[in-house]
Protein backbone atom coordinates (compact mmCIF):
# COMPACT_ATOMS: atom_id res chain seq x y z
CA UNK A 1 0.00 0.00 0.00
CA UNK A 2 1.46 3.38 -1.01
CA UNK A 3 2.00 6.16 1.52
CA UNK A 4 -0.48 8.46 -0.24
CA UNK A 5 -3.21 5.77 -0.17
CA UNK A 6 -2.50 5.13 3.50
CA UNK A 7 -2.80 8.85 4.21
CA UNK A 8 -6.06 9.08 2.25
CA UNK A 9 -7.51 6.14 4.22
CA UNK A 10 -6.47 7.76 7.53
CA UNK A 11 -8.07 11.07 6.53
CA UNK A 12 -11.31 9.38 5.48
CA UNK A 13 -11.33 7.44 8.77
CA UNK A 14 -11.08 10.73 10.65
CA UNK A 15 -14.01 12.15 8.64
CA UNK A 16 -16.04 8.99 9.26
CA UNK A 17 -15.44 9.31 12.98
CA UNK A 18 -16.97 12.80 12.83
CA UNK A 19 -19.83 11.47 10.66
CA UNK A 20 -19.04 13.92 7.84
CA UNK A 21 -20.54 11.60 5.27
CA UNK A 22 -20.79 14.17 2.46
CA UNK A 23 -17.04 14.91 2.60
CA UNK A 24 -16.28 11.18 2.90
CA UNK A 25 -18.19 10.45 -0.31
CA UNK A 26 -16.26 13.15 -2.21
CA UNK A 27 -12.90 11.83 -0.98
CA UNK A 28 -13.87 8.21 -1.64
CA UNK A 29 -14.97 8.95 -5.22
CA UNK A 30 -11.49 10.15 -6.12
CA UNK A 31 -9.68 7.44 -4.18
CA UNK A 32 -11.77 4.59 -5.59
CA UNK A 33 -11.24 5.89 -9.13
CA UNK A 34 -7.52 5.30 -8.59
CA UNK A 35 -7.80 2.10 -6.50
CA UNK A 36 -11.15 0.50 -7.38
CA UNK A 37 -10.41 -2.84 -5.73
CA UNK A 38 -8.75 -1.73 -2.50
CA UNK A 39 -10.75 -3.42 0.26
CA UNK A 40 -10.00 -0.73 2.85
CA UNK A 41 -11.54 1.94 0.64
CA UNK A 42 -14.47 -0.36 -0.14
CA UNK A 43 -14.95 -0.90 3.61
CA UNK A 44 -15.06 2.86 4.10
CA UNK A 45 -17.63 3.07 1.29
CA UNK A 46 -19.73 0.44 3.08
CA UNK A 47 -19.34 2.39 6.35
CA UNK A 48 -20.56 5.63 4.82
CA UNK A 49 -23.57 3.83 3.30
CA UNK A 50 -24.30 2.35 6.72
CA UNK A 51 -24.12 5.77 8.39
CA UNK A 52 -26.49 7.19 5.77
CA UNK A 53 -28.82 4.21 6.37
CA UNK A 54 -28.39 2.77 2.85
CA UNK A 55 -28.19 -0.72 4.29
CA UNK A 56 -28.59 -2.75 1.09
CA UNK A 57 -25.85 -0.79 -0.68
CA UNK A 58 -23.62 -1.13 2.38
CA UNK A 59 -24.18 -4.91 2.48
CA UNK A 60 -23.40 -5.29 -1.24
CA UNK A 61 -20.11 -3.41 -0.86
CA UNK A 62 -19.28 -5.27 2.33
CA UNK A 63 -19.63 -8.62 0.53
CA UNK A 64 -16.84 -7.47 -1.85
CA UNK A 65 -14.71 -6.55 1.17
CA UNK A 66 -15.29 -9.89 2.90
CA UNK A 67 -14.43 -11.76 -0.31
CA UNK A 68 -11.00 -10.08 -0.25
CA UNK A 69 -10.44 -9.88 3.52
CA UNK A 70 -12.64 -12.45 5.27
CA UNK A 71 -10.78 -12.08 8.58
CA UNK A 72 -10.97 -8.28 8.83
CA UNK A 73 -12.36 -7.45 12.27
CA UNK A 74 -13.72 -4.06 11.16
CA UNK A 75 -15.53 -5.66 8.22
CA UNK A 76 -17.11 -8.33 10.43
CA UNK A 77 -18.08 -5.72 13.05
CA UNK A 78 -19.83 -3.75 10.29
CA UNK A 79 -21.47 -6.96 9.04
CA UNK A 80 -22.83 -7.43 12.59
CA UNK A 81 -24.17 -3.84 12.65
CA UNK A 82 -25.93 -4.36 9.33
CA UNK A 83 -27.43 -7.69 10.40
CA UNK A 84 -28.70 -6.07 13.60
CA UNK A 85 -30.28 -3.24 11.59
CA UNK A 86 -31.98 -5.79 9.36
CA UNK A 87 -33.09 -7.73 12.45
CA UNK A 88 -31.22 -10.85 11.29
CA UNK A 89 -30.56 -11.88 14.88
CA UNK A 90 -29.40 -15.46 14.33
CA UNK A 91 -26.73 -14.38 11.81
CA UNK A 92 -25.71 -11.40 13.98
CA UNK A 93 -25.28 -13.70 16.98
CA UNK A 94 -22.97 -16.00 15.02
CA UNK A 95 -20.78 -13.08 13.91
CA UNK A 96 -20.48 -11.51 17.37
CA UNK A 97 -19.77 -14.89 19.02
CA UNK A 98 -16.90 -15.41 16.55
CA UNK A 99 -15.56 -11.93 17.32
CA UNK A 100 -15.78 -12.62 21.06
CA UNK A 101 -13.98 -15.96 20.72
CA UNK A 102 -11.11 -14.12 19.03
CA UNK A 103 -11.13 -11.24 21.52
CA UNK A 104 -12.62 -12.60 24.74
CA UNK A 105 -11.68 -9.51 26.74
CA UNK A 106 -13.30 -6.93 24.45
CA UNK A 107 -16.06 -5.45 26.63
CA UNK A 108 -17.75 -3.66 23.73
CA UNK A 109 -18.42 -6.96 21.94
CA UNK A 110 -20.17 -8.28 25.06
CA UNK A 111 -22.31 -5.14 24.92
CA UNK A 112 -23.13 -5.72 21.26
CA UNK A 113 -24.01 -9.36 21.95
CA UNK A 114 -26.23 -8.14 24.81
CA UNK A 115 -28.05 -5.92 22.29
CA UNK A 116 -28.86 -9.02 20.23
CA UNK A 117 -30.16 -10.78 23.32
CA UNK A 118 -32.31 -7.79 24.31
CA UNK A 119 -33.86 -7.77 20.83
CA UNK A 120 -34.46 -11.52 21.16
CA UNK A 121 -36.03 -10.75 24.58
CA UNK A 122 -33.50 -12.88 26.47
CA UNK A 123 -32.78 -10.36 29.18
CA UNK A 124 -31.09 -12.74 31.62
CA UNK A 125 -28.38 -13.61 29.12
CA UNK A 126 -28.06 -9.94 28.15
CA UNK A 127 -27.38 -9.03 31.79
CA UNK A 128 -24.91 -11.92 32.19
CA UNK A 129 -23.02 -10.80 29.06
CA UNK A 130 -22.77 -7.23 30.35
CA UNK A 131 -21.61 -8.50 33.73
CA UNK A 132 -18.80 -10.36 31.95
CA UNK A 133 -17.91 -7.33 29.82
CA UNK A 134 -17.79 -5.04 32.85
CA UNK A 135 -15.19 -7.37 34.42
CA UNK A 136 -12.75 -6.30 31.70
CA UNK A 137 -13.80 -2.66 31.42
CA UNK A 138 -15.64 -1.49 34.52
CA UNK A 139 -17.24 1.57 32.88
CA UNK A 140 -17.75 0.32 29.34
CA UNK A 141 -20.54 2.55 28.00
CA UNK A 142 -22.14 -0.15 25.83
CA UNK A 143 -22.42 -2.64 28.72
CA UNK A 144 -23.76 0.04 31.10
CA UNK A 145 -26.29 1.19 28.50
CA UNK A 146 -27.46 -2.39 27.88
CA UNK A 147 -27.91 -2.98 31.64
CA UNK A 148 -29.78 0.35 31.92
CA UNK A 149 -32.09 -0.78 29.12
CA UNK A 150 -32.69 -4.12 30.89
CA UNK A 151 -33.50 -2.14 34.08
CA UNK A 152 -35.96 0.02 32.17
CA UNK A 153 -37.67 -3.08 30.78
CA UNK A 154 -37.73 -5.21 33.93
CA UNK A 155 -38.10 -2.79 36.80
CA UNK A 156 -41.19 -0.78 37.72
CA UNK A 157 -41.50 2.48 35.79
CA UNK A 158 -39.35 5.25 37.23
CA UNK A 159 -37.21 2.95 39.40
CA UNK A 160 -33.58 3.99 39.93
CA UNK A 161 -31.00 2.23 37.78
CA UNK A 162 -27.47 1.94 39.17
CA UNK A 163 -26.12 1.32 35.67
CA UNK A 164 -27.70 4.55 34.41
CA UNK A 165 -26.16 6.45 37.33
CA UNK A 166 -22.77 5.00 36.36
CA UNK A 167 -23.35 6.06 32.75
CA UNK A 168 -24.17 9.59 33.86
CA UNK A 169 -20.97 9.74 35.93
CA UNK A 170 -18.62 8.32 33.29
CA UNK A 171 -20.27 9.20 29.97
CA UNK A 172 -22.59 12.16 30.60
CA UNK A 173 -22.34 13.55 27.05
CA UNK A 174 -22.92 10.28 25.24
CA UNK A 175 -26.03 10.29 23.09
CA UNK A 176 -27.37 6.97 24.39
CA UNK A 177 -26.92 8.11 28.01
CA UNK A 178 -29.08 11.14 27.31
CA UNK A 179 -31.69 9.10 25.45
CA UNK A 180 -31.92 6.73 28.44
CA UNK A 181 -32.29 9.73 30.76
CA UNK A 182 -35.12 11.05 28.56
CA UNK A 183 -36.93 7.68 28.77
CA UNK A 184 -36.45 7.52 32.56
CA UNK A 185 -37.80 11.06 33.03
CA UNK A 186 -40.76 10.21 30.81
CA UNK A 187 -41.45 7.07 32.89
CA UNK A 188 -41.39 9.17 36.06
CA UNK A 189 -43.97 11.53 34.58
CA UNK A 190 -41.54 14.45 34.13
CA UNK A 191 -42.62 15.11 30.53
CA UNK A 192 -41.33 18.69 30.46
CA UNK A 193 -37.86 17.65 31.66
CA UNK A 194 -37.75 14.80 29.12
CA UNK A 195 -38.88 17.14 26.35
CA UNK A 196 -36.25 19.79 27.21
CA UNK A 197 -33.39 17.27 27.02
CA UNK A 198 -34.78 15.85 23.79
CA UNK A 199 -34.85 19.37 22.27
CA UNK A 200 -31.17 19.79 23.22
CA UNK A 201 -30.39 16.45 21.57
CA UNK A 202 -32.08 17.61 18.36
CA UNK A 203 -29.94 20.78 18.38
CA UNK A 204 -26.80 18.63 18.79
CA UNK A 205 -27.83 16.08 16.13
CA UNK A 206 -30.39 17.62 13.78
CA UNK A 207 -29.89 14.87 11.16
CA UNK A 208 -30.66 12.00 13.52
CA UNK A 209 -34.21 10.97 12.56
CA UNK A 210 -34.70 8.79 15.68
CA UNK A 211 -33.89 11.72 17.97
CA UNK A 212 -36.09 14.10 15.97
CA UNK A 213 -38.98 11.63 16.21
CA UNK A 214 -38.47 11.18 19.97
CA UNK A 215 -38.38 14.96 20.51
CA UNK A 216 -41.52 15.50 18.41
CA UNK A 217 -43.42 12.83 20.36
CA UNK A 218 -42.40 14.39 23.66
CA UNK A 219 -43.31 17.85 22.43
CA UNK A 220 -46.74 16.52 21.50
CA UNK A 221 -47.05 14.90 24.95
CA UNK A 222 -46.45 18.22 26.69
CA UNK A 223 -48.90 20.18 24.51
CA UNK A 224 -51.54 22.11 26.47
CA UNK A 225 -54.40 20.51 24.55
CA UNK A 226 -53.52 17.15 26.12
CA UNK A 227 -53.84 18.41 29.71
CA UNK A 228 -57.32 16.84 30.15
CA UNK A 229 -55.71 13.45 29.48
CA UNK A 230 -53.56 13.72 32.60
CA UNK A 231 -55.49 11.01 34.56
CA UNK A 232 -55.11 8.54 31.70
CA UNK A 233 -51.39 9.30 31.37
CA UNK A 234 -50.88 9.06 35.13
CA UNK A 235 -52.68 5.72 35.60
CA UNK A 236 -52.37 4.28 32.08
CA UNK A 237 -54.75 1.52 31.02
CA UNK A 238 -55.89 1.08 34.64
CA UNK A 239 -57.11 4.69 34.42
CA UNK A 240 -59.05 3.92 31.22
CA UNK A 241 -60.74 0.93 32.84
CA UNK A 242 -61.55 2.95 35.99
CA UNK A 243 -63.02 5.74 33.84
CA UNK A 244 -65.24 3.27 31.98
CA UNK A 245 -66.42 1.71 35.27
CA UNK A 246 -67.10 5.11 36.82
CA UNK A 247 -69.01 6.11 33.71
CA UNK A 248 -71.28 3.06 33.90
CA UNK A 249 -71.91 3.54 37.62
CA UNK A 250 -72.64 7.27 37.17
CA UNK A 251 -74.92 6.78 34.16
CA UNK A 252 -76.82 3.95 35.89
CA UNK A 253 -77.19 6.03 39.06
CA UNK A 254 -78.64 9.01 37.16
CA UNK A 255 -80.71 6.84 34.81
CA UNK A 256 -83.24 6.09 37.55
CA UNK A 257 -83.67 9.68 38.77
CA UNK A 258 -82.83 11.96 35.82
CA UNK A 259 -82.60 10.40 32.37
CA UNK A 260 -81.61 13.70 30.69
CA UNK A 261 -78.61 14.12 33.02
CA UNK A 262 -77.68 10.48 32.44
CA UNK A 263 -77.77 11.07 28.65
CA UNK A 264 -75.61 14.20 28.87
CA UNK A 265 -73.13 12.41 31.16
CA UNK A 266 -73.02 9.46 28.77
CA UNK A 267 -72.25 11.76 25.81
CA UNK A 268 -69.56 13.57 27.83
CA UNK A 269 -67.82 10.28 28.69
CA UNK A 270 -68.08 9.09 25.08
CA UNK A 271 -66.69 12.43 23.88
CA UNK A 272 -63.77 12.22 26.31
CA UNK A 273 -62.99 8.66 25.18
CA UNK A 274 -63.09 9.70 21.50
CA UNK A 275 -60.89 12.74 22.21
CA UNK A 276 -58.36 10.53 24.05
CA UNK A 277 -58.15 8.15 21.06
CA UNK A 278 -58.31 10.56 18.14
CA UNK A 279 -56.62 13.82 19.17
CA UNK A 280 -53.13 12.61 20.37
CA UNK A 281 -52.21 10.91 17.05
CA UNK A 282 -53.47 13.93 15.07
CA UNK A 283 -51.44 16.26 17.28
CA UNK A 284 -48.35 14.06 16.90
CA UNK A 285 -48.62 14.23 13.10
CA UNK A 286 -49.08 17.98 13.25
CA UNK A 287 -46.00 18.41 15.48
CA UNK A 288 -43.94 16.24 13.06
CA UNK A 289 -44.89 18.55 10.19
CA UNK A 290 -43.97 21.67 12.17
Amino acid sequence: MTDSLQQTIAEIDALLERRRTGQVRVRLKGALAEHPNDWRLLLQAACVDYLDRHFDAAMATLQQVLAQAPHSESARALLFDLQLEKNELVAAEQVVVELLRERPQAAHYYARYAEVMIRAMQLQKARALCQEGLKYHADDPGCLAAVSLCDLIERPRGATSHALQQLLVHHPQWLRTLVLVVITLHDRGDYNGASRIAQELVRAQPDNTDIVQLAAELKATTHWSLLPLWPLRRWGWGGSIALWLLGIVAVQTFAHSNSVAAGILGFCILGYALYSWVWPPILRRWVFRV
Partner: protein
Amino acid sequence: MTMSRDELLRPSLGDAVAARAPYSVRTTFLTAFFGGPLAALAIIVLNSVRLRRWLPDLPVLGVVLAGFIAFVLALYWTEWGGGLRAYLQAIAGERALTYLFRLIALGFFGLGYALHRKEQRSADLIGMARPNGWIGGIACGIGGLIVQVAFAQMSRAGL
Protein backbone atom coordinates in the same frame (compact mmCIF):
# COMPACT_ATOMS: atom_id res chain seq x y z
CA MET B 1 -27.50 -15.05 37.15
CA THR B 2 -23.95 -16.37 36.75
CA MET B 3 -22.86 -18.07 33.54
CA SER B 4 -19.44 -19.40 32.57
CA ARG B 5 -17.80 -17.82 29.55
CA ASP B 6 -18.38 -21.03 27.56
CA GLU B 7 -22.09 -20.81 28.32
CA LEU B 8 -22.13 -17.13 27.43
CA LEU B 9 -20.48 -17.76 24.07
CA ARG B 10 -22.81 -20.62 23.17
CA PRO B 11 -25.32 -19.27 20.61
CA SER B 12 -28.81 -19.10 22.12
CA LEU B 13 -30.89 -18.41 19.06
CA GLY B 14 -29.91 -21.44 16.96
CA ASP B 15 -32.03 -21.95 13.88
CA ALA B 16 -35.24 -21.11 15.67
CA VAL B 17 -37.19 -18.09 14.53
CA ALA B 18 -36.66 -15.25 17.01
CA ALA B 19 -39.56 -13.74 18.93
CA ARG B 20 -41.57 -11.13 17.02
CA ALA B 21 -43.12 -8.00 18.45
CA PRO B 22 -46.52 -8.60 20.04
CA TYR B 23 -49.70 -6.68 19.20
CA SER B 24 -49.52 -3.37 21.02
CA VAL B 25 -51.13 -2.82 24.42
CA ARG B 26 -53.60 -0.43 22.76
CA THR B 27 -54.65 -3.07 20.20
CA THR B 28 -55.02 -5.68 22.96
CA PHE B 29 -57.10 -3.27 25.08
CA LEU B 30 -59.43 -2.25 22.26
CA THR B 31 -59.86 -5.87 21.12
CA ALA B 32 -60.79 -6.88 24.67
CA PHE B 33 -63.10 -3.88 25.15
CA PHE B 34 -65.05 -4.27 21.93
CA GLY B 35 -64.63 -8.00 21.26
CA GLY B 36 -65.29 -9.44 24.71
CA PRO B 37 -63.55 -12.11 26.80
CA LEU B 38 -62.94 -14.65 24.02
CA ALA B 39 -61.50 -12.00 21.70
CA ALA B 40 -59.25 -10.87 24.55
CA LEU B 41 -58.02 -14.42 25.09
CA ALA B 42 -57.55 -14.89 21.34
CA ILE B 43 -55.28 -11.85 20.99
CA ILE B 44 -53.31 -12.83 24.11
CA VAL B 45 -52.77 -16.28 22.58
CA LEU B 46 -51.63 -14.62 19.32
CA ASN B 47 -49.16 -12.54 21.32
CA SER B 48 -47.87 -15.66 23.09
CA VAL B 49 -47.30 -17.34 19.73
CA ARG B 50 -45.56 -14.27 18.29
CA LEU B 51 -43.35 -14.06 21.38
CA ARG B 52 -42.53 -17.80 21.21
CA ARG B 53 -43.73 -18.25 24.77
CA TRP B 54 -46.99 -20.09 24.23
CA LEU B 55 -45.72 -23.09 26.22
CA PRO B 56 -45.29 -21.25 29.56
CA ASP B 57 -48.51 -19.28 28.92
CA LEU B 58 -50.59 -22.33 27.97
CA PRO B 59 -51.46 -23.51 31.52
CA VAL B 60 -52.54 -20.03 32.64
CA LEU B 61 -54.59 -19.32 29.52
CA GLY B 62 -56.05 -22.84 29.54
CA VAL B 63 -57.25 -22.44 33.14
CA VAL B 64 -58.69 -19.00 32.35
CA LEU B 65 -60.55 -20.29 29.27
CA ALA B 66 -61.91 -23.32 31.16
CA GLY B 67 -62.96 -21.06 34.04
CA PHE B 68 -64.74 -18.67 31.66
CA ILE B 69 -66.63 -21.50 29.90
CA ALA B 70 -67.63 -22.96 33.28
CA PHE B 71 -68.83 -19.52 34.42
CA VAL B 72 -70.98 -18.99 31.29
CA LEU B 73 -72.49 -22.49 31.64
CA ALA B 74 -73.22 -21.85 35.30
CA LEU B 75 -74.70 -18.46 34.45
CA TYR B 76 -77.30 -19.96 32.10
CA TRP B 77 -77.81 -23.48 33.48
CA THR B 78 -77.76 -23.21 37.25
CA GLU B 79 -80.05 -21.68 39.80
CA TRP B 80 -77.13 -19.67 41.15
CA GLY B 81 -76.57 -18.27 37.65
CA GLY B 82 -80.21 -17.30 37.27
CA GLY B 83 -80.10 -15.50 40.62
CA LEU B 84 -76.92 -13.67 39.66
CA ARG B 85 -78.41 -12.55 36.34
CA ALA B 86 -81.54 -11.29 38.04
CA TYR B 87 -79.49 -9.45 40.67
CA LEU B 88 -77.25 -7.79 38.08
CA GLN B 89 -80.19 -6.75 35.91
CA ALA B 90 -81.89 -5.26 38.96
CA ILE B 91 -78.91 -3.00 39.71
CA ALA B 92 -77.57 -2.26 36.22
CA GLY B 93 -80.52 -2.75 33.89
CA GLU B 94 -80.97 -4.86 30.77
CA ARG B 95 -77.34 -4.40 29.66
CA ALA B 96 -75.95 -5.81 32.92
CA LEU B 97 -74.57 -8.96 31.32
CA THR B 98 -72.91 -6.96 28.53
CA TYR B 99 -71.17 -4.87 31.20
CA LEU B 100 -70.21 -8.01 33.11
CA PHE B 101 -68.65 -9.66 30.05
CA ARG B 102 -66.84 -6.44 29.17
CA LEU B 103 -65.47 -6.28 32.69
CA ILE B 104 -64.29 -9.89 32.44
CA ALA B 105 -62.67 -9.05 29.08
CA LEU B 106 -60.82 -6.15 30.69
CA GLY B 107 -59.72 -8.52 33.45
CA PHE B 108 -58.30 -10.82 30.75
CA PHE B 109 -56.56 -7.81 29.20
CA GLY B 110 -54.95 -7.16 32.61
CA LEU B 111 -53.83 -10.77 32.77
CA GLY B 112 -52.32 -10.55 29.28
CA TYR B 113 -50.54 -7.34 30.24
CA ALA B 114 -49.11 -9.00 33.36
CA LEU B 115 -47.94 -12.02 31.32
CA HIS B 116 -46.29 -9.98 28.56
CA ARG B 117 -45.35 -6.74 30.33
CA LYS B 118 -41.59 -7.10 29.79
CA GLU B 119 -42.00 -8.08 26.16
CA GLN B 120 -44.36 -5.15 25.51
CA ARG B 121 -41.88 -2.80 27.15
CA SER B 122 -38.96 -4.28 25.17
CA ALA B 123 -40.85 -3.83 21.93
CA ASP B 124 -41.59 -0.18 22.81
CA LEU B 125 -38.06 0.67 23.91
CA ILE B 126 -36.26 -1.13 21.09
CA GLY B 127 -38.72 0.20 18.52
CA MET B 128 -39.65 -3.21 17.10
CA ALA B 129 -42.13 -3.09 14.21
CA ARG B 130 -45.58 -4.02 15.52
CA PRO B 131 -48.00 -6.15 13.49
CA ASN B 132 -51.02 -4.44 11.95
CA GLY B 133 -53.43 -4.09 14.86
CA TRP B 134 -56.48 -3.51 12.66
CA ILE B 135 -56.29 -6.93 11.00
CA GLY B 136 -55.49 -8.96 14.14
CA GLY B 137 -57.77 -6.94 16.40
CA ILE B 138 -60.81 -7.02 14.11
CA ALA B 139 -60.33 -10.74 13.32
CA CYS B 140 -60.10 -11.63 17.02
CA GLY B 141 -62.98 -9.29 17.89
CA ILE B 142 -65.38 -10.69 15.28
CA GLY B 143 -64.33 -14.30 15.91
CA GLY B 144 -64.67 -13.88 19.68
CA LEU B 145 -68.09 -12.25 19.42
CA ILE B 146 -69.45 -14.95 17.05
CA VAL B 147 -68.27 -17.77 19.33
CA GLN B 148 -69.57 -16.00 22.43
CA VAL B 149 -73.03 -15.33 20.95
CA ALA B 150 -73.27 -18.89 19.61
CA PHE B 151 -72.19 -20.29 22.97
CA ALA B 152 -74.69 -18.12 24.87
CA GLN B 153 -77.50 -19.16 22.49
CA MET B 154 -76.64 -22.83 22.92
CA SER B 155 -76.45 -22.42 26.69
CA ARG B 156 -79.84 -20.68 26.77
CA ALA B 157 -81.34 -23.41 24.60
CA GLY B 158 -79.93 -26.00 27.00
CA LEU B 159 -77.87 -27.78 24.31
